């Protein structure tokens, strides 16, 4: 089976967000593989170990993304490709999906796995957009996958319930929490990872029209959620409290 995994380098989930000059600052921040993509890497390795074939991890990113790709190789992926987009100015989910679509044009694949969302922008768009562009069937938020020949049986998280879907390969899926427990890269795996192929290409090496991939969205402002004020405790007669509560919801919170 030829398996590809889409991987994004994101902020460590423990990081505090700091805004500097209207942008989220990445100074001194630790980066990780987007946790949902980590589920995808793990699942790809499990499927490869079961059905044979090869796992290639692909990231649209910058020079620094090499570190996260090496981690995926250390976990057990076979190959990695870094599509460098450092020089590209305005990027959004449309840009990323279009670059990936151009990359996949001449590739053979049975399965493409991605994360359900990234823990930074949380749009959940890249996977579905890519599938649309490639004309592939896709299933998002999967919590289980079984492959038998040309068919995949998937369990999909639908807000607490589970949907079971059968789909034919080639197929694109995005991973939801619960799909698996990603392994820690083993120490010998890390030593081996440096000998595994990591290919770096520039986005303009691909067959792409720059205007086509231009971002379709624009960020107007960036701000932190307002700090939570102290709560208000009402007291006195129950009837009076109820009245005060309703009036507060009306006039202060403006939600009634």
């Amino acid at each position, binding site marked *: 089976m030829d398996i590809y995994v889409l991987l994004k380098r994101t902020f460590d989930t423990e990081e505090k967000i700091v805004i500097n000059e209207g942008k989220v600052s990445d100074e001194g921040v630790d980066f990780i593989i987007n946790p949902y993509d980590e589920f995808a890497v793990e699942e790809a390795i499990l499927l490869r170990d079961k059905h044979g074939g090869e796992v290639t991890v692909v990231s649209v990113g910058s020079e620094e993304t090499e570190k996260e790709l090496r981690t995926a190789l250390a976990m057990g992926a076979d190959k990695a490709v870094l599509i460098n987009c450092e020089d590209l100015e305005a990027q959004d989910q449309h840009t990323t999906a279009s670059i990936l679509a151009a990359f996949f044009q001449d590739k053979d694949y049975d399965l493409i796995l991605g994360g359900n969302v990234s823990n930074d922008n949380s749009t959940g768009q890249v996977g579905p957009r890519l599938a649309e562009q490639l004309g592939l069937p896709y299933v998002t938020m999967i919590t289980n996958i079984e492959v038998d020949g040309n068919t995949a049986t998937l369990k999909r998280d639908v807000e607490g319930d589970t949907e079971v879907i059968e789909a034919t390969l080639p197929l694109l899926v995005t991973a939801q929490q619960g799909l698996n427990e990603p392994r*820690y*890269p083993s*120490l010998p795996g*890390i030593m081996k990872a440096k000998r595994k192929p990591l290919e770096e290409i520039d986005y303009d090496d691909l067959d792409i029209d720059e205007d086509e991939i231009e971002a379709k969205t624009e960020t107007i402002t960036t701000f932190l959620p307002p700090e939570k004020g102290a709560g208000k405790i009402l007291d006195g007669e129950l009837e009076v409290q109820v009245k005060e509560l309703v009036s507060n919801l009306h006039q202060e919170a403006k939600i009634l």
Partner: protein
Amino acid sequence: MDFRLDEEIEFLKTNIRNFVNNEVEKVAMQIEKEDKIPERIIELSKEMGLFGLSIPEEYGGLGIGMVGKCALYEELGKTHNGYTTLIGAHTGIGTVGIVELGNEEQKQKYLPDMASGNKIGAFALTEPEAGSNASNLKTTAVKRGDTYILNGTKHYITNAIEADVFTVMAVTDPSKGAKGITSFIVEKSFPGFQVGAVEEKMGLKGSHSAELIFEDCEVPEENVLGEVGKGYMNALKILANGRAGLAARNLGSCQKLLDMCMEYVQERVQFGVPIIEHQAVAHMVAEIGVEIEALRSFTYRIAWKVDQGEKVIKEAAMLKLYGSEVYNRVADKALQVHGGVGYISDYPIERYYRDARITRIYEGTSEIQKNIIASQLRKEYS
């Protein structure tokens, strides 16, 4: 001079750090209460290949030099010292004997299983009457045909209950004193071998030290490790080799204590200001910082010397002494900086304080290190 670590070593370090923070730190209190490392942590450690830290690549280990090993031990030192001791005693004194002195068959037979963690290693020198005076062994090994018959008792042996493979020192020729001692590889399953009482200890919970009892224990001749009669020298060599690693673990624990101190002194308010504003407190953390930097430089310099193939008997003893004393001083200051909280068992500081104490005793006491250093200096200057 280049003080940077190789890229791969940095990579290995990051992964151990993640593992330690995400897994071991979360169960540190549980380890302390139950005196047991959870099975999940042991399994994950095996999967990660931590047990093969000091074993060459051709036998399934990591195959990295002493600088690299110290970098990884430093990370492991940043969590529960009982867990670190399980890994450290196995990858240190528990396997080094076979790696350095074993013949090809012995290495093939034991190391792959030890690298994967399927078999745990331990080192058995100390006896009730042979502590610092380690050549005063009473355990005997008498040759009968192609088998050695061992009789005697070892005590305080770390990993005794977990281990399958023991490097054991015993007397093969009582007339020759230190030169009549031989090292053996003894398997737990050999007839006549028994693990005795497990000690209750001040700290290092989750790591277990116990008695070993040999009663006509049969050890095949091919399990002699190194040469007959060289056992005492072997033991000293194995211990010397472990010293940089122990210092690196101590260094990691000191760093962890400083991290905790720096968080606390900026948060805790007394007399209307964070306590770091009180100069006496600020000076304590400054002193901790200096001790750590000095120990770090010392540790990696000696590790580098080991990697160059230099003889480091004196320097390794100095490092063992210094690293252990620094850890104790730092733990004491860190507790003082934390005030009452430092003494309360719901917080980790007092645990480090207790765990630090053993480092001045095992693998040769501080006093014995000074004896070694002084005798080496006398040799140099005579």
